[in-house]
């Protein structure tokens, strides 16, 4: 890819903010590689902070898109796939659309390896912040191809049309493949940002984009190409990475979140002659030739290892009380939402009917089905390879370089398929990566660190717990005159490498430390959609990670964003409070929402879900049938360009307290629907996760650490729990935008279920999960 013909003719053409130059025929090793720009030296690259050593130069078009003489196309993107298949479906569709080629013409997608992709950032906000990179890169390349065709065919550019990769005009035609043959065209794509930051590079400028009404590829349900290799056991998973000479390791993590190592337990060398125990500060790893030896030896070492004690956590039973009474919400000022308006206190005091209520959510686990695993390979020349499954490989690369006090150009992160992380690794690490590198450095060989199930529950991050206080004022006609909500939540994004923390090596700052990316301030994450309310006040208060300050190793209940981050924690109290207010107003809760919404798309999803769920306003109290009462609940949300509404139908066993979700209906209007079948599957999945969180999930912890350790004490929904799920997709191409896809579904399900519980029982469940003991206590109250 570095061969350059410096003798070729060059011309520079202005193109929508990008500079375009063309050089002559280039061959490399006798094989024509690409038609486009093999030049390494261009003005954008020199001294550009965007380019780091061994990553592809995002300013070069072929770093993104290669068009081959046989008309096949390869695309690259830094974001790895995490199961939604977006890079293999929606991104491919968007690129095919901008290039005006068939979907199938894109035969290769390279994603998520730091040395093979250009732009960084990660598997989150795929269609929001992430999408414009591939779309614009494709659009720039499309313009460059048209310029080339205009010259080749001798037809003005504006008289050319492209269909299925064939450029036509003036009675002549030429395929992209023929167009790029013997051509080497350097187009400089303008980029900005920092490659290894959380958000990576952004493609700048405004190349002409294909009008939505000319779309032929977007909107169709192409299958996810990676599904076949996974189903056939042909995929190389992160769990499958095996390097020559590689050793297996298991970690012996501290006894508590504040424990320091006192002494390492003995290892019977007669049983484990080739096993080594590596100790670095409070990091203890056991490295062995085989996996089973590593497991058994680590168990033996762990049994004899002594740690100091620590009790610095409130314990999950006292969590709500701790958040209300002990946590410091004043160290940073609260943020007030943009939608806040009017004089709320005056409106509240003038309201004849008022709702005052407090809501609480526990910590949740992302709970990937496979525990963290990574292979680290620190080579003799100081280069470091990390083989892992992370949502943000470039950010991990930066974190590993920082930990080793080396340059990012020495570090390569390669990613592989693995279990969904649901946000846990969007800041770079999922756990195990840093430990694999530390151990590899110590033993001089590649080391595979596989966390056990308990490591993954007890040493990973968790989704923040939260509180909310709500006041709603209603007028005599049942209209909301005032809505006030105060949200409280610890800072979400502790992306420190926990192995580095234990080993005493450098990491990025924790959220409450100086220089951290986001700090501890909370934000208004759940955009207000009931704009018919004259007075609104939404405030968000933040606080530091619980326990970190008093922990001698600076580890507390590490918080992390998880699907619908922050918005989950804010939508549940808001939507349940709105349902409670509707009841107080004696208005049907779905109708109540429509009456207060002003945006037509918000009303549209509510109407759609009303129709599709066959919602009927309640005329009489639910009857007790076979010990069960049934109810219906509704929730709504605006997230990242998409409007959502959800109806849940549930059955509550009034004796046992068991809640069974019978049906969930979700309507989503994301603007342009890119791939209906894939979106539908994603929404189904998010819905099940949300139901699971609402009914079953809660991280348990004592004063010393997380006691949740396996699937028995962190139960999630099983197939037996799954309701009928109906997904209604509303395609609104006139919006002209791709709204973000699936993850909102999990937040909607939880708040709709809580609404249905209120409808069935008359009792508001102001915290979740709705486990039988809690439900029984509510029913008795």
């Amino acid at each position, binding site marked *: 890819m570095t061969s350059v013909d410096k003798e070729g003719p060059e011309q520079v053409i202005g193109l929508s903010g990008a500079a375009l130059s063309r050089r002559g025929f280039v061959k490399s090793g006798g094989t024509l590689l690409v038609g486009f720009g093999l030049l390494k030296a261009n003005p954008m690259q020199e001294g550009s902070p965007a380019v780091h050593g061994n990553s592809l130069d995002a300013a070069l078009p072929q770093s993104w898109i290669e068009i081959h003489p046989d008309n096949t196309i390869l695309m690259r993107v830094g974001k790895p796939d995490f199961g939604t298949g977006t890079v293999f479906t929606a991104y491919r569709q968007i690129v095919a659309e901008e290039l005006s080629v068939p979907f199938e013409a894109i035969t290769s997608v390279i994603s998520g390896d730091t040395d093979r992709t250009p732009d960084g950032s990660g598997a989150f906000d795929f269609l929001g912040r992430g999408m414009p990179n591939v779309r614009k890169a494709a659009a720039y390349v499309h313009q460059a191809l048209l310029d080339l065709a205009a010259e080749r065919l001798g037809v003005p550019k504006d008289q050319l049309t492209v269909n299925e990769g064939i450029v036509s005009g003036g009675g002549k035609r030429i395929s992209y493949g023929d167009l790029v043959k013997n051509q080497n065209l350097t187009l400089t794509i303008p980029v900005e940002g920092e490659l290894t930051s959380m958000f990576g590079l952004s493609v700048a400028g405004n190349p002409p984009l294909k009008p939505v009404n000319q779309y032929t590829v977007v909107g169709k349900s192409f299958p996810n190409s990676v599904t076949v290799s996974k189903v056939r056991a042909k995929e190389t998973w992160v769990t499958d990475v095996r390097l020559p000479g590689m050793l297996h390791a298991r970690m012996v993590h501290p006894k508590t979140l504040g424990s320091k190592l006192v002494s390492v337990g003995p290892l019977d060398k007669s049983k484990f002659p080739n096993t080594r125990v590596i100790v670095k500060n409070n990091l203890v790893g056991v490295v062995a030739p085989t996996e*089973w030896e590593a497991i058994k030896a680590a168990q033996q070492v762990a049994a004899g290892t002594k740690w100091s004690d620590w009790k610095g956590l409130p314990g999950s039973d006292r969590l709500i009380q701790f958040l209300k009474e002990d946590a410091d919400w004043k160290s940073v000022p609260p943020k007030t939402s943009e939608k806040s308006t009017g004089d709320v206190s005056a409106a509240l005091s003038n309201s004849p009917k008022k709702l005052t209520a407090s809501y609480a959510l526990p910590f949740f686990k992302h*709970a990937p*089905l496979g525990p963290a695993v990574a292979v680290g390979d620190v080579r003799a020349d100081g280069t470091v390879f990390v083989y892992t499954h992370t949502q943000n490989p470039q950010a991990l690369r930066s974190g590993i370089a920082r930990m080793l006090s080396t340059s990012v150009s020495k570090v390569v992160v390669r990613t592989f398929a693995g279990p969904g992380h649901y946000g846990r690794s969007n800041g770079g690490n999922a756990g195990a990566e840093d430990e694999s590198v530390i151990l590899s450095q110590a033993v001089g060989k590649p080391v595979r660190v596989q966390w056990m199930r308990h490591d993954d529950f007890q040493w990973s991050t968790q989704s923040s717990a939260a509180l909310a206080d709500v006041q709603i004022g209603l007028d005599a006609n049942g209209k909301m005159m005032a809505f006030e909500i105060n949200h409280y939540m610890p800072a979400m994004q502790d992306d420190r490498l926990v192995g580095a923390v234990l080993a005493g090596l450098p990491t990025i700052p924790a959220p409450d430390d100086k220089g951290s990316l986001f700090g501890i301030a909370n934000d208004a994450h759940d955009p207000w959609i009931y704009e018919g309310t004259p007075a609104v006040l939404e405030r968000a208060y933040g606080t530091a990670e619980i326990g970190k300050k008093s922990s001698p190793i600076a580890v507390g209940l590490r918080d992390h964003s998880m699907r619908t981050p922050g918005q989950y924690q804010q939508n549940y109290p808001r939507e349940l409070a709105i349902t409670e207010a509707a009841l107080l107003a004696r208005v049907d809760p779905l109708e109540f929402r429509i009456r207060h919404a002003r945006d037509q798309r918000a009303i549209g999803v509510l109407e759609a879900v009303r129709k599709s769920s066959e919602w009927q306003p309640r005329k009489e109290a639910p009857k007790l049938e076979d010990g069960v009462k049934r109810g219906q609940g509704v929730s709504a949300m605006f997230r990242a360009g998409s409007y959502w509404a959800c109806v849940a139908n549930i059955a509550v066993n009034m004796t046992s307290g068991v809640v069974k979700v019978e049906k969930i209906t979700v309507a989503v209007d994301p603007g342009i629907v890119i791939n209906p079948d894939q979106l539908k599957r994603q929404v*189904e999945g998010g819905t*099940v996760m949300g139901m699971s969180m609402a009914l079953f999930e809660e991280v348990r912890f004592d004063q010393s650490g997380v006691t949740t350790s396996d699937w028995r004490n962190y139960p999630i929904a099983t197939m037996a729990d799954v309701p009928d799920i109906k997904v209604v997709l509303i395609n609104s191409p006139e919006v002209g935008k791709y709204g973000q896809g699936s993850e909102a579904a999990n937040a909607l399900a939880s708040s709709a279920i809580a609404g249905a519980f209120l409808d069935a029982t008359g009792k508001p469940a102001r915290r979740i999960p709705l486990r039988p003991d809690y439900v029984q206590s509510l029913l008795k109250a």
Partner: protein
Amino acid sequence: MVTILVNGEKRGVQASVDTPLLYVLRNELQLTGPQFGCGLAQCGACSVLLNGKEVRSCITPLSAVGTKEITTLEGLPARWAKQRGLSKEQAANTLHPVQEAWIAEQTPQCGFCQNGMMIKATELLEQTPSPTVAEIKNAFSSGVSPHLCRCGTYLAIIQAVQRAGARMTKRSEIL
């Protein structure tokens, strides 16, 4: 050295007999369909068939295998081919109907649990060719532990099992 029967072939393995079958399959035989999910028989990601019965390879020691036949995800096409008496040529181009249905229904999200789901589906359909939704739910939620999917693909799994069942039943009628 222990000899085990895997996907129709006898394979010699070096691991000590207390080694869980999962690590033998993955690390010695490069049969990486089964995944490590918990090591506690709580999730089903590691499932294989042992004489047609779904077991959790993460807690099944090598010593417990004996002469029983192991079928992994990699062995499903050959298992189907053998059951249907397909020629070698046909077999080479055949997926198990369960696998075909998983692709047709676009069942996986991350796919990490789907090995166990497909193994469980095969066990179920070999015993109950046309299961009801209730029977499917019961099969996947009972036994040693429920088969867990964190991405929430259960509905897609139910649809894929039904599709595979229809396909398998249809073929047996033709044959």
